[in-house]
């Protein structure tokens, strides 16, 4: 699972799934990975934009990508 639409970095879910991981352990791995999600992409993409709620989000990094393998 890639943590940014435009990044090659991520974690291997296949190894977990085929290694017999429990759902609970799977969740813990995902949560750990999400905490390490990059703030932005290449440092070139705008860091934040205001949303209607007044929060700031990174537009290019506000999503995941599940990439095979």
């Amino acid at each position: 699972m890639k943590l940014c639409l435009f990044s090659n970095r991520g974690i291997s879910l296949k190894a977990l799934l085929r290694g017999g991981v429990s759902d609970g352990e799977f969740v813990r791995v995902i949560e750990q990975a999400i905490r390490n999600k990059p703030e932005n992409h290449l440092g070139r993409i705008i860091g934040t934009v205001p949303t209607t709620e007044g929060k700031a989000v990174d537009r290019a990094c506000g999503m995941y990508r599940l990439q095979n393998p």
Partner: protein
Amino acid sequence: MNDGFGRELDYLRISVTDRCNLQCSYCIPQEEVHTIPYDEILTYDEIVRVVRILAKMGVTRLRLTGGEPLVRQDLPLLAERLKRIRGIEFLGLTTNGVLLEEMAEALFDAGVDGVNLNLDTAERYRYTQLTKRDEWPRVWRSIQKALSLPFRSVKINYVLAPDSKVDDWFSVVALAKDHPLDIRLIEWIPYADEYVKDGVLSDKAMQIIRKSYVPLTPLDVPGSSELSHYWKAKDFKGRIVLIPFTAASFVPPATACVSPPVDF
């Protein structure tokens, strides 16, 4: 589910295959193409399990991508299983459209809500030149087929890549004249660490389109993402949507494209 910067994440893109039925020059290298062995690709059972867990963690929206997702066997079966998962509210598909005409009904019946078609041109000769396949007639039929079904959305993605041609922009934008399509002009973002050179900024592209192809006026679309800027041309059935990513091109929609048109 929030990341370390407090951003709420509810969207998962699922690349179901690395294979494709086109050979676009910017994507497929000239030399031999190496694909991932089938047994190394997640099975449908494995994908469904991942999505079940992530849905419990807050994912509500899914998008099936590739490669070209429709070349994976029995994709409607996966779509149906994913859409049945509790918490999944939207299932989208991004495709090159070559196989969509024959699969569109099965995908709709399976629960696919919206279809995005990636296009680099809407002119047959250029399409063949860019993709190495003479498939534009099939893609065009696929667009018409998708529009004939009650999908929540049918959108065209056009990436403003560094070497994109203005005539290709115009050919794609022209699809909105007679059809209720959203033509999304998306700023190019270098993948991973493969930065080569800048793409075309969306506001510059819009200036060129407005000056040299068709006048456009901004639209206020309630509920749309603040990342999508909607525009409409007089007598067009569809809309033009700017998707900017870089700081240089991001201005509030109300003030977008007020600078003088650029020459080219």
